[in-house]
């Protein structure tokens, strides 16, 4: 009996101790959640390292962004938020904001103004898509193709609409296994004007038309769920062309030297940035705000582009984008925002998708499994 009591007492103590540890965030530490891989490395180099040097605060990287939405909700329900700052896509930021899992911020109060005095609100401009979202980078979902598989005598594909042209460019394609971007491209390439795409997608006829267009390439398409799949499929020669994030294609082309070309036309612009989880204590909140102010200023955002080919979300950062830190090539031409690449761009309408995602996703998955 005595042993049991002792055992129970010990386990209780351990339990309380571990709980106290989980809660008692060390005063000098901050857990920042991001996507891992090359992306986290770019943030480490551009933001974390200089900040840690400047303040002495230790930043812990957690690579859980892909499951951040669910984990934040679980943490919030358990009343124990262990993350200080989370890197998410804009669409998820809206969801987190709606669910009350992220804090609303006043951009002009929290974020630094541009060096020339332009307010943060103006400098970030349209990228401030939600009250909770602190934009970092502009990336795009666009197409890469095998340069050695282009049929002889044909010009190489230029963009999204070439993916639907099986006669001109035979071979397998890869597309994201969710409706976002695919539905828009389908309508656009079926001759719908850019301005009418979302209006038309709200209607049954519009959706049917998009699915009909996608039907034409359905059996030639491999549907991916992770951003790394298309680069791998391209490298293996498994597909002729496929969509993925432009930074992934950059590393296939510039870092691995694969025979892959970029097709930028109608690239789908997307944003990635920070959200601050709700439920932080005051001192943790103050620390996070200080970090965010530092990490999203004009110079820091421009610095990140040295390590990865995503464009800074601030207008004032664009002129400061220099060469790649190790390859030494100029990064500006690889940015989705470069004028040569951005002749035709599609702006993802996040708020529209916040409404239609559940519905269209169900229809899209039903269509896929047919």
């Amino acid at each position, binding site marked *: 009996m005595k042993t049991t009591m002792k055992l129970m007492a010990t386990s209780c103590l351990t339990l309380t101790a571990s709980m106290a540890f989980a809660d008692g965030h060390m005063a000098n530490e901050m857990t920042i959640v991001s996507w891992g891989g090359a992306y986290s490395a770019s943030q480490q180099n551009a933001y974390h390292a200089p900040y840690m040097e400047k303040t002495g605060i230790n930043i812990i990287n957690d690579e859980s962004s892909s499951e951040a939405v669910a984990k934040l909700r679980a943490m919030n329900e358990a009343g124990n938020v262990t993350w200080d700052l989370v890197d998410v896509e804009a669409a998820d930021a809206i969801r987190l904001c709606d669910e009350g899992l992220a804090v609303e911020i006043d951009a002009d109060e929290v974020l630094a103004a541009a060096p020339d005095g332009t307010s943060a609100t103006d400098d970030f401009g349209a990228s401030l898509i939600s009250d909770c979202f602190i934009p970092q980078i502009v990336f795009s979902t666009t197409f890469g193709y095998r340069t050695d598989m282009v049929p002889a005598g044909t010009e190489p594909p230029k963009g999204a609409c070439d993916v639907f042209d099986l006669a001109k460019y035979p071979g397998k394609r890869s597309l994201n296994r969710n409706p976002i971007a695919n539905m828009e491209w389908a309508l656009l390439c079926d001759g719908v004007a850019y301005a009418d795409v979302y209006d038309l997608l709200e209607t049954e006829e519009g959706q049917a038309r998009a699915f009909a267009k996608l039907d034409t390439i359905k059996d030639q398409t491999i*549907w991916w769920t992770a951003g790394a799949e298309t680069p791998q499929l391209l490298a293996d020669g498994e597909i002729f062309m496929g969509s993925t994030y432009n930074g992934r294609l950059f590393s296939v082309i510039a870092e691995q030297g694969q025979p892959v070309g970029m097709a930028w036309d109608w690239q789908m612009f997307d944003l990635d940035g920070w959200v601050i989880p709700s439920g932080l204590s005051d001192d943790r909140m103050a620390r996070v705000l200080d970090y965010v102010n530092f990490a999203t200023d004009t110079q820091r955002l421009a610095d990140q582009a040295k390590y990865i080919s995503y464009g800074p979300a601030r207008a004032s950062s664009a002129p400061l984008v220099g060469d790649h830190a190790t390859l030494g090539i100029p990064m500006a031409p690889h940015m989705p925002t470069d004028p040569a690449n951005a002749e035709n761009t599609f702006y993802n309408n996040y*708020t529209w998708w916040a*409404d239609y995602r*559940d*519905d269209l996703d169900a229809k899209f998955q*039903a269509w*896929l499994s047919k």
Partner: protein
Amino acid sequence: MSDKMMAADGRPLKASLNRALRRQKLRALALIAPLLLFIVITFVMPIADMLFRSVENEIVSETLPRTTIALQEWDESSATPPGEPVFAALYTDMALATEYKTHTRLGSRLNYEMTGISSLFRKSGRGVGKFDTDVYTKAFQDSNAAYADPAQWASWMADETVRGQLPMTADAYDAWAAMLISEEGDVPAEETPWDFVFTALYLEASAGATLPVDVDVSSVEPVSLMAQFEKIDEDWADPEVWRTIKIYSPRYTNGYFLNSVDLMKGADGIEERPENEQIYITLFVRTMIMSLSIMGMCVLLGYPIAWILANLPSRTANLLMILVLLPFWTSLLVRTSAWKVLLQQEGVINDILVWIGLVADDNRLQMINNQTGTIIAMTHILLPFMILPLYSVMKTIPPSYLRAAKSLGATDWTAFWRVYFPQSVPGIGAGCILVFILSIGYYITPELVGGTKGVFISNRIAYHISSSLNWGLAAALGTILLVIVMLLYWVYDKIVGIDNVKLGG
């Protein structure tokens, strides 16, 4: 009495024995108590909580308490939106929910049922503070300064007679005061009530209630709250929106369960989902069929291997056993990716087949991103779960039985089928249960190699847990899966008998 046996201490033996037994039981219970507690807290409770979400639906009536009550009067099959009183209730609820920041949460919840409600609520939260109802506030305060005095308001609202005269105003004031304390940290007795409280006061005054200080507000042009809401978004005039709110206003709902079997709640009861949204039944059926085929493949492949392992000299058997276990110790993702390299169209197997000349170069086999890929990869991954129980059961079958059968004149086949096989059935049973139950819950492998036709129901559950945050639907799908497994287990018990399952010796 004399026939009762007594213990040494003079008590009846029976009682004494019982006491000793009870003490022993308690001691045993105390010993396992930490584990029991651990399992209950970390395993049973979370699962029960998750399953409970499949019917729980308190968010609607908690966020819009007044509206859901007012809506009871409204007929959900009507073609017109509800009247002004419902909009008045919605005004109070929405103004409060916006301060608590719960309106967007409710919006996301209802958006699962009707597309567009999410942004309707987001917009309404922004617009509800800018209604023209400030004319009421102004009218009262201009007519009598007492209405602009926070302390006066507080004393009225503490007075039972006033509260009895103005129940709606008192209710709005109480809710406003509670919100002020919890959200802003202000003292209600120092703040003038907001427009929605004055709106309630005006509505009651114009209905003839006695005011604490009599003022004449009959000259004020009434503001139609319905029109105000319609100004934010004309969807508020859409009866479909109200139907959704009303249908989902009870605290518990079967909506998630209906949804997970491709049904939905319509205006007149349960109806089928439109054909282009039906997916879950297909996925359930597919998950079952594919899991059964994976199980079958595992038996076919695992049985001979286990037989060889059990009948070889132990030195060789151990070496072979390592070969069975080696993939078991390799990361799941690595094994799945390896199958991609092997099976894809430009992959190793296709290359070899083309090289031999069995397939034409432009007609390579499609072995991945479909059901074939899922079955191959999952059979490989789950094979050890079949081989290990089979092996440990076969190990206990004495080889002499087979020899005896043969010496009595049985052919090889008869000896195997009549003597050996029946003894190995418990191993097959254990292996089948393990493989089947593991495979219906798999989602990483189907996600990576399943393409469009090889994905399982668990992939959708994962999507609803991690992306769409529709945990209610995920919980309903999970509950159905759990019930199916239990049903199959019961059927298995009836046919084979659960006593006939052996995981080893």
